[in-house]
């Protein structure tokens, strides 16, 4: 094991290299580019024995990964934003074909207007494609999750997406423990596909299935997602035993006695941790729940953590237009109708890469602390607007009433 100072993108590359990926097909896009640049160099220098396929689009990148994975190769790619959207058709195919492809997606806001900065809407818009989704908080988690993702994916035969924030992680350097290759090899044996393309025994893959069978195939995929919950926990624990860093579906921080729990994902979590520590020092009973795995959605884990907590505030750096922040909506669906369900506040913050600072999080905690229940579906935090339309800093209802009066 060695400690290296790596940018988030290179943490992905190192994770892929240690996982001994066999085929890489990728198309460059800011802010993902260094992921595949580094892998291309690793291939060129002979540090990684993989076939590197240059393609003309992300759709082709995923198609190539699908082909490679169907032959039993360990396939990897990385993309971001518009590139991920272009892959959309192939994402469904990869999952339906039960191919354990691993992909890193760097969260970047969608155009127009053009933006290269962080926002989760690109990956969250793929939530129904049948991919496992891991949202990472640090470069260490990025590297560790890449290695775990192959093990989990290959066990349940579902593709996995490792997700990291543009620039906040992708281009930020952090010290990262890089495990030894032998240790990773012990943890992650070569992929043994249950089914693979074989020219000597030709079959058509993804054949036509009528209404009498399609339903069962879908049922099996859903069952695989259930199995994935167990796999993620077990693999995360095994990883902890071998490498000293355990992972799960969610990660609680001062949740036990908390009266208010923030629910976060990705790098906003780190900022929130600092605020929670500060408030705890002042004696406030606040806590934090990081959601690491978004698909499969950890229904049981969040219920276990949050039922009985009076108030929960979800911070979303994403938005389902015409609905809510997406973690917010998903969390509500997990808690709905449950006994002792908390009041759930939803905050949309930091779209298009706008900074979510400790001050932003203090503001959120102030709003949640000042009222028993949310007085609106979505709170926009930090919106630059005319004073009368602006977001109230304290009790929203009162202020709005004042405007009306």
């Amino acid at each position, binding site marked *: 094991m060695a400690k290296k100072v790596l940018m988030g993108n290179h943490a992905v590359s190192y994770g892929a290299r240690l996982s001994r990926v066999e085929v890489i097909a990728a198309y460059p896009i800011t802010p993902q580019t260094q992921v595949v640049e580094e892998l291309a160099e690793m291939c060129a220098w002979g540090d990684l024995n993989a076939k590197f396929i240059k393609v003309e689009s992300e759709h082709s990148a995923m198609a190539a990964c699908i082909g490679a994975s169907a032959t039993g190769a360990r396939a990897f790619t990385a993309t971001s934003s518009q590139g991920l959207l272009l892959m959309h058709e192939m994402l469904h195919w990869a999952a339906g074909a039960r191919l354990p492809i691993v992909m890193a997606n760097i969260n970047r806001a969608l155009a127009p207007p053009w933006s290269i900065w962080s926002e989760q809407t690109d990956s969250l818009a793929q939530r129904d494609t049948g991919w496992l989704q891991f949202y990472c908080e640090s470069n260490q988690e990025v590297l560790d999750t890449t290695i775990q993702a192959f093990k989990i994916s290959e066990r349940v035969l579902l593709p996995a997406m490792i997700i990291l924030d543009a620039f906040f992680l992708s281009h930020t350097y952090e010290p990262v423990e890089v495990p030894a290759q032998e240790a990773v090899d012990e943890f992650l044996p070569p992929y043994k596909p249950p089914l693979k393309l074989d020219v000597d025994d030709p079959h*058509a893959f993804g054949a036509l299935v009528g209404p009498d069978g399609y339903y069962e195939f879908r049922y099996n995929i859903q069952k695989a997602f259930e199995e994935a919950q167990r796999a993620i926990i077990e693999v995360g624990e095994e990883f902890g035993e071998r490498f000293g860093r355990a992972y799960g579906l969610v990660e609680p921080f001062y949740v036990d006695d908390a009266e208010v729990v923030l629910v976060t994902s990705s790098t906003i979590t780190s900022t929130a941790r600092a605020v929670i520590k500060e408030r705890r020092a002042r004696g406030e009973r606040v806590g934090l729940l990081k959601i690491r795995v978004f698909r499969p959605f950890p229904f049981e884990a969040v219920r276990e953590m949050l039922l009985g907590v009076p108030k929960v505030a979800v911070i979303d750096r994403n938005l389902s237009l015409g609905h809510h922040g997406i973690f917010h909506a998903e969390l509500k669906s997990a808690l709905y109708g449950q006994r002792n369900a908390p009041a759930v506040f939803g905050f949309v913050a930091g779209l298009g890469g706008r900074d979510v600072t400790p001050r932003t999080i203090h503001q959120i905690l102030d709003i949640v602390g000042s009222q028993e229940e949310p007085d609106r579906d979505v709170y926009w935090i930090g919106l630059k607007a005319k004073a009368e339309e602006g977001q109230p800093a304290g009790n929203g209802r009162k202020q709005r009433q004042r405007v009306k009066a």
Partner: protein
Amino acid sequence: MTTAIRPESLPPMAITWDSTRVNKTGSWRYLRPVYRDKTPPCHAGCPTTNEIERVLYWVALGDLDRAWEILTAENPFPAITGRVCHHPCESRCNRGRFDEAVGIREVERFLGDWALRAGKRVEPLVPKKSNKRVAVVGGGPAGLACAYHLARLGHAATVFEANPEPGGVLRYGIPNYRLPKSVLKAELHKLKDLDVEIRTNARVGQDVSWDELQRQYDAIFVATGVWKSLPLRVPGEDLKGVLSGLQFLKALHQGQGQPLSEELGERVVVVGGGNTAMDVARTALRLGKRVVIAYRRTRAEMPAIPEEIEEALAEGAELIERVSPTKILGEDGRVVGIELQKMRLGEPDESGRRRPVPIEGSEFVLEADTVITAIGEAPDFAGLPEELHDEWVVPVDEWGRVLRQKVFAGGDVIDQPHTVVDALASGKRAAIAIDLFLKGKLDRKEADEIRRRIELPQGGLSMRRYVEDPGALLLDNTRIVEYEQLNPAYFQKIARTPPQERPPEARVRDFSEVKPGFDWDEALREAERCLHCGVCNGCDNCFVFCPDLAVTRNAGADGRGYPYAINYDYCKGCGICVQECPRAVLELVREGSGEGG
């Protein structure tokens, strides 16, 4: 059936029970891709129909033996044409439209020189010898080519050469710095290998009579060339110091260089703009003379090979354009100057070049010790029967045959361009015609069928097509591939390999060759630039791009068939292979049209 499908009994992904080979998707096809080699423009543009594309293909792969065999099927003397040919192939090369034409001639020379060094021997193309005898009158390129091809077709050829050595213009015209005598001698050794008898100092009508030839030989090929210089028809032409270009060159080749040089004086004016004029000018430069070339049109209209003009000027010859001699001035019976009249260019004449028109009163005098004329040559028909020729040429039919007799003709005595390669081509054409004649096929319909099979779009006849099994001929000899038909997305721009060259100031001091020729690396690099227009070179594009995996590599390919085969059971006729073929080999034909098998 539904009872069989239980979630736990399903594979991870839906796959067919059996191979999808049962689904013959080829039945959906209404267009059929077929491989069909077409004629590259270099191949068609070469009078001797050299299969340049194949030659370059094998050179690039390093198989020089194979390249040489293909080349010498058509052209007996690659080391010669590789030096002196005016390379119409390069003017037609499609690569010229992409970046620069392939340096075909230099590769040909490389291959020719390699074969000489390697001591390669040519063998007959047909195993059996006929008992037919053919007389070849004239041992220049046309006659030697005819004898070479006749011998390779199994006939006994005897060459009657008036001069002491064979070679014609190759020996007595082209100077050493363009074609060393050692190369000529080595190339002509092929005739000895093929048991061709060459009788030198045997002038027909003097040393042997025409009637004798008629009696003793089954066929006669006449290629006596053009050895009479056309006169200037100006006053003073009979002065001492006025020479004809051919006379001058021949004297030099016969080893009279030194006395000739003393006779020439300092200042030499060469009149004319053809290859003979350039040879004369450059030879005079090498004898240490000051040389002026006087030409009646401009440099652009000069019939000489452009490189020859360029090299002559680089070596110090001075060119005066748009002038015509009106008088040669003398003192005591010897040249002292030449009077030239300025010309302007008028309307184009029948050759397409603008006709020079004299400008009255523009005459001026150039001092000169010697005037050498090279404004054209005419044949000398002495010794040949009257009925064979008119004033200027021996008229021949499309086979090179004279008056439907057993007499054939070629080279500069027939109506064709006066070039070495055209002479070689006419010799080959006559050899094929004589072969057909001796087998009694020439006057039959069969000859037309054969001609259709072996003739390329610009009229050249291919010996390979003549001797090959017709079923093995892949190349469609009726269609030339033009640049627009290629898919240049697959080509990379690569500069033409410049041949090494001795600097002008060094090379005018002697008669050694100007260019040393390509080395191995240069030849390979240049051969690799060939785009293989219209001929499959196994690039794998069709194989790689076929979405139905219906293109397979043809394991049995031995260089005679295509390296790929299409499985029409599964080819849907999408046409992607046709689109992606860089060289227009693949084409689509309508299903059921009967084309393409």
